[in-house]
């Protein structure tokens, strides 16, 4: 499911126009981003939560050239799935 499909599904279920849904989705994303920038953990309801973690700097070697590179530290967003999603995934057999 991509963004447009999501919008369509939401507009159908909530009886809202697609533009309205789109605007609201943008707002949600903006709110979540703003909270993540503050390093807060944001809950995504029954899906899980998003949090910011720091990846430490490390030295990696380019296998083809053998050059050693110092990869700087990084802040990344990490998704942690909720227990309900976990349970659902267990039932879902590949």
């Amino acid at each position: 499911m991509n963004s447009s499909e999501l919008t369509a599904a939401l507009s159908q279920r909530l009886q809202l126009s697609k533009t309205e849904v789109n605007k609201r989705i943008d707002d949600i994303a903006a709110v979540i981003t703003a909270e993540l920038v503050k390093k807060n953990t944001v809950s995504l309801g029954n899906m899980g939560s998003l949090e910011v973690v720091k990846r430490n700097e490390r030295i990696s070697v380019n296998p083809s050239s053998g050059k050693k590179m110092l990869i700087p530290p990084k802040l990344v967003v990490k998704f942690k799935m909720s227990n309900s999603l976990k349970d659902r995934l267990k039932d879902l057999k590949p």
Partner: protein
Amino acid sequence: MNEKINIQSLVTLFAEKSGLTKKEAEAFLKEFFTVAHEGLLSDKIMKIKNLGNFKLIVVEDRESIDITNGSRVLIPAHYKVNYSPDAQLAETINEPFSLFEIIEVRHEAGKLEHIRKARVETGAEKPAEAASIEPITEKLTRKEFRDYEENTVQETIDENIIPEPIIEKSIQEYKKEIRIRETDEESLSDEGTIAEFASSSQARPTWETVEEPQEKLSPIDEEQEEQEEQEQAQEIQKKEQEKNQEEIEEQEDLKEEQEQDQEQDQEEEEEEPEEELFFIPEADPYEEFILEQEAQRMRGTEKKLTFSIDEKTPIQEEPLGEEEEVLEEPFDEEEAVDEEEASVEELKEASVEELTVEEPSPAELPPPKTISQKFSEIIENKKETIREDKKTFYEWVVYLSIILIIAGVYLYFEHEERLQAEYVNSFLHQFDDNQEIEQSATTGKTSSEIFFREREPLPRASDTLVDNPIVNNPIAKIDADNSNIIKKRRIVAGERLTLIALKEYGHKSFWVYIYQENRDRIKNPDNVPVGTELIIPPASKYGIDKNSKESIQKADELALQLMSK
């Protein structure tokens, strides 16, 4: 910071942002997450604009070990969620660290730092400092000398990146250094002024060269430098005094000079403890050790060598172009002779020769080359003898070690052979009345074969040995006759069923039969406890034949069946 924004607070924030009522906002958010949840599960991918992609990824099933009881567990294939944030979002989040860039690590920088450290630790500056003096024995004009000095200093620094002290060199260097320091110490007793030094210091580049490597390698305290300058100045003053003394002496006979030497000798003795005090803390323990050893070894010949080395120190000072210092030379030489208490006639003559040659000539003219050549020859000879000594010593070490190794190998084999023989003998004694053994002995079974059998547990009254079915081997025939004979063996550390099967039947696939025979004892065929007594069934019981593909295949199939249970 690090707060947990739950769904309620998110609703509040969302309502504020979009200007909705809380109820509307909550309804929308809940619906949004539910749809996203369902969408993710149904399509295995969920793309949300400005937030990122959620993807379900299949994790293949894999085997693992239950840490509580060590048994094997199969983790079934399952899904996991992979989240990749939107590029814009990732960038915004990483804002605080965005200034960092990927840097290529340069090894050289670290290496250099390391070498510098090592140099400071091993005190490698000292040889560098001393080595820079050595080549200056040749007479050069001041300009040439400057150029040369720069090169040699650079060279010596390069050499010392890997500090590898050469024995002869280090001896010479240290002797020289001692000499220089000593003169420094001497001059300390006299009083001197820096002003005087300033005028004369330019004329004495030798001292500059001594200091320069140190400056390059490690920063010296300014105080120390100043002190050394003072020392130099004092030394010059002292030398001036000596010169005057010397001038008077030269007019007299050589014999009188010798008398003077004796007086100086006494002075030397007084100064000696001072010299030692100075030398010990300065010396690198390693080089000091070498010095000591070498000095002991060539005590006899060294006297000549040290004399000639000491000779160098004054010669170095020659390019300075000052009469005083040239005149001072013989004094130093004599001193050196006395110090070593060596009255080598030849060298004395040389010193006399130098005296006579140099007296009339001003210092600007280079001193006769013959003398320096003579000395360099002597030095070369000494160096060679030392080198040869070392060479022969190392050769002897190599020979000795080879002989020792050969002896060790010989002894080891002899011991092994004896042990084997004893083993066979005892074996034969024990089973003297056993027909099989007699038979095998008479048919010329090699001792190693008996040895191999011997390592297996001794058969009991009812048991007899079952060996590998070796074609055309008398033992194999006997085994075939006694097909109902069962063998027992105890499992030892490092042994597995497959290994036993390989030993007993000639193919590892036949481990299944051993397992089948011992099912009451073996819980897990992959992990048989050490010390378990196993019954090894005879090959004929299961139709084991290592040469038959069918037999092996049958065993493999059986193994598969057993494992799948």
